[in-house]
């Protein structure tokens, strides 16, 4: 048996930029930067905005000229469109990084371990940063979001099951209404709980009311995401379940829902992330106390958004530093939830 020597061929990537093209691109950016520097120096236009605008125009002009002489007018137009689309992405993304940087930059000052051990019962927002903390806000947020979850999870998933499995006569209107419900402004959810429960029945704000208001905002998120997840479950599974003699109830509860488990958990996490930072309804109905209050049925209850809100409206440097620290904690939580959702949905898709 003779061995055949296969000549080693390096795979070519014709779409990849050659070093020459990369050098041209770098030269383009460099020339544009120099041009913008001198134009700003020479003309009365001043400021960062002028630098950026002239830089952008110069990049487009050089690209345009290059592709015009190389490949003609159509290619030149295409290069302009590419530049504009890339600019759109950059403009959309710059605020995100600015926000993340700001939170890190300003939140750092107020962050210390005491935050997680103390509440604001015996401290005013004006006290030095080491004193007091946001334990009450963490506990309150946890309880209220937990209540919202207890209410929204069954309703949301039942809605999704109704839409994908039962497909009854109300499917279309319900789908429409769930979409409409996801657009309900958060303050309206707060007003609704006020008008329906707080004013006529309890006459006082409490953590339960906050949880109820949050659940109105959470139900549509869970329902819509779960619906999309259940739609991805292949029909073969349902048919197999029915063919084995299962009733619809057993097919769905023992086959469809377990198959969609990771997706449904993702839906739940996205729902949590959606409501964890809601401020307006909590300002209206939860009262926002300063002490740790583990009882959701009685007395005002603090929450992270309310803590941030209070610090901001108080307006002194200390209280605002507290707010930034609160935002840092809140966003870290949302970030963790988001990563958990991404990881779960990613591993679910691979199976």
């Amino acid at each position, binding site marked *: 048996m003779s061995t055949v020597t296969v000549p080693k061929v390096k795979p070519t990537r014709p779409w990849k930029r050659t070093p020459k093209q990369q050098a041209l691109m770098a030269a383009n950016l460099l020339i544009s930067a120099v041009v913008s520097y001198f134009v700003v120096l020479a003309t009365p236009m001043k400021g960062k905005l002028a630098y950026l605008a002239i830089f952008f125009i110069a990049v487009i002009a050089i690209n345009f000229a290059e592709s015009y002489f190389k490949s003609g007018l159509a290619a030149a*137009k295409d290069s*302009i469109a590419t530049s504009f689309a890339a600019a*759109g992405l950059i403009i959309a993304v710059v605020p995100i990084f600015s926000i993340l940087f*700001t939170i890190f930059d300003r939140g750092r000052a107020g962050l210390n371990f005491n935050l997680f051990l103390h509440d604001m019962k015996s401290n005013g927002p004006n006290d030095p940063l080491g004193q007091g903390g946001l334990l009450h806000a963490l506990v309150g947020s946890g309880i209220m979001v937990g209540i919202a979850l207890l209410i929204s999870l069954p309703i949301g998933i*039942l809605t999704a099951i109704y839409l994908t499995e039962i497909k009854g006569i109300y499917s279309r209107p319900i789908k429409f*209404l769930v979409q*409409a419900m996801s657009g309900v402004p958060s303050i309206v959810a707060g007003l609704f709980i006020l*008008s329906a429960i707080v004013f006529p029945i309890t006459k006082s704000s409490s953590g339960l009311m906050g949880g109820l208001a949050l659940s109105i905002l959470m139900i549509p998120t869970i329902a819509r995401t779960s619906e999309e997840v259940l739609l991805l479950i292949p029909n073969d599974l349902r048919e197999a379940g029915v063919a084995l003699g299962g009733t*619809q109830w057993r097919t769905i509860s023992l086959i469809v829902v377990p198959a969609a488990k990771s997706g449904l958990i993702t839906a739940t996490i996205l729902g949590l992330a959606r409501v964890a930072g809601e401020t307006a309804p909590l300002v209206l109905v939860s009262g926002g106390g300063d002490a740790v209050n583990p009882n959701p049925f009685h007395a005002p209850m603090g929450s992270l958004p309310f803590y941030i809100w209070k610090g*901001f409206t108080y307006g002194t440097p200390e209280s605002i530093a507290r707010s930034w620290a609160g935002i840092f904690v809140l966003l870290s939580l949302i970030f963790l939830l988001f990563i958990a959702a991404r990881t779960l949905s990613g591993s679910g898709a691979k199976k």
Partner: protein
Amino acid sequence: MTTTAPGARSANSPISTPVKREITTKPRFSDKVFRGVATAGGLSSLVILGLILIFLGYQGFQVLRSEGFGFITGSNWQVMQDNAGNTDLAASTFGIAAMLIGTLLCAAMAVVIAVPISVLCALYLTFYAPQLLKKIMVAVIDLMAAFPSILFGMWGFFILMPHVEYWGRLIHKYFSWIPLFKMEIPVFTRSPFVAGVVLAIMIIPIITSVSREIFSQTPLDRVQAAYALGATRWSMIRAVVIPYGRSGVVGGAMLGLGRAMGETVAVYTVLNLVYQINWHVLIGAGGNVASMILLKFGEAGPTETRALMAAGLVLFLLTLLVNSIANTIVSRTGGKGR
């Protein structure tokens, strides 16, 4: 000896005839319960929306009846008290026109700023970006959609506002001949323009993700046909993607509009809330319905609270209308919708 076909009954067999079973599609009892429970869960959205309508309407009825149509067209918000210190409903006037105009103005500005950016961004992500960049950016933009509004509010107040004020001055300098940008007193701080820019940044992720989804559903055969005819990427987008996705983008823009109209905290933080009709977007005075509710709620008496409920009802109906139209458009374009 006779052979019997398998399954046929022999004469002396003791086995009795199997009872003919009923073949039916009638659900079992357990299924009936299950279907009932799921239907109840599904109808809950209808129930909740209905209850919102009923309770806000019930609480706001008194004010709405005494103000009539003036509640929407009037622009005065004055609480009068009689001698006993109670609110005198007949003498008070509640009209939310000023805030309604503010709501529409801020939201419209946000959409005007956000749509071009979002559409370009969606085009770049769908047709230009390398795979890795696309994956990262989609995750980042999705994360941004989950940022709480108070975060946008505080960031807008402390970081963005100085920049936007400067842009406002530039616009005023060069475009003050447009009535919208005119101003007599140069007060640029905390203007509706700032609120519009903050709202625009808030709705960019929504419009981007809707547009991206619509663009990615463009029929591949048409895309490839355009390329085969020698189209560049841009002429392909102009000839195929934009005609296909146009109405979907309109729907996405309206979803963003709905979100911007209902936004409370971000507007409250950046805008200087003044109860007056203000068409000049660069002047630092304005408001929207949601932030007004939050502002006035703290010190409102019973009657004023009822008026605020009525304002909430108007806001609810307005956002419901906008969102319904938007969802109808999006789902009609994209096949399965969002």
